């Protein structure tokens, strides 16, 4: 089919969506916070090097460790979701495939986050 739309119509497209800034900003915020949180996670891991099972579960039930781990999970799941979304929008152009992948991306990030949080909480409260 020949396309008779004018170049002005093509350039205007569906207009400006009026968003994108929030994701852009959240990606920057989670990058900066991520650096701090990774430091916290590394401290938690390094303190448990060489420790036996009981010592590790003990350490992981320390409220401070739990908070650091849960925050890191939340932070990186948000960061991962936005990052993956950008990749999908960049390279996937079929509307249906794109929608399905965007849904899968959100689902995946949520599952990883919740599963991780459940694991941390289980160790913290049930050992």
């Amino acid at each position: 089919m020949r396309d008779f739309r004018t170049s002005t119509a093509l350039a205007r497209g569906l207009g400006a969506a009026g968003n994108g800034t929030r994701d852009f900003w959240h990606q920057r915020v989670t990058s900066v916070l991520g650096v701090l949180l990774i430091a916290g996670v590394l401290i938690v891991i390094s303190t448990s090097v060489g420790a036996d099972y009981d010592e590790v579960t003990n350490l992981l039930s320390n409220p401070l460790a739990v908070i650091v781990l849960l925050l890191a999970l939340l932070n990186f799941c948000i960061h991962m979701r936005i990052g993956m979304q950008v990749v999908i929008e960049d390279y996937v152009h079929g509307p249906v495939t794109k929608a399905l992948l965007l849904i899968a991306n959100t689902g995946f990030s949520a599952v990883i986050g919740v599963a991780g949080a459940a694991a941390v909480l289980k160790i913290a409260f049930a050992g």
Partner: protein
Amino acid sequence: MRSFLPLNFGADTVSRIAKGKIWDTSTGDKATRVLEVYRYDPESGRGPRLDVYHIDRKSCGPMVLDALVKIKNEIDPTLTFRRSCREGVCGSCSMSIDGRNWLACTQPIDDIRGTIRVFPLNHFLVMKDLVVDQSHVIAQHRLIQPWLKSETPGPERERLQSPEDRAKLDGFYECILCFSCTGGCPSYWWNGERYLGPAVLLQAYRWLVDSRDEAKGERLDTLEDPFRLYRCHTIMNCTKTCPKGLEPAKAIARIKAMLVERQH
């Protein structure tokens, strides 16, 4: 900056570049330079080809554009390309030279070692030989309304601007719309229908930062879009390939900063 990939890697069948004619005008002289030039004639019904020309550097001007003009005048009058000012101010002669988008009229022949490979500007659809179709990117430029917008009635004489505010336009007003940057941007390759690309965004910033303009909010509204603006992933090819030494990537980063600023 030659690509390590073979010439036709991943190219559509219709776009595959065949070996072309060798215009053997070589005199065996040491001053002979060899050019491989992309040729495509939509009316021929055939795909593109790479023609080889020999030119005598001694009787040719210093720039790649001089070599192309010499080829057109003396060897092959069918070679088609755009040029006007031949001194880097009109932006018509941008093309891919030795693997980089640049102006043929400001690219010295002697800075290129070996065979000089000349292709049309990356990414754009080819109309003929080195001439590409820029209608989409020109329409995108029109979209950002590249003119002063002011509701306050104009003064009798010029609209005043302090020297400091005028200085804010430096590095942005000099753009000659050659689209070397846009053609060199991978994000524009994947999403050029919607992404405005570095040249247009640099122009958008040029008006956003102009103290005399009254339409900043409106301008930002036009740009605030995941595709129009946020496809820029700071790849920086634009800055590398701008023959005027401008920094579209910096302009885009500043637009993003403005949008964040108005949120908080």
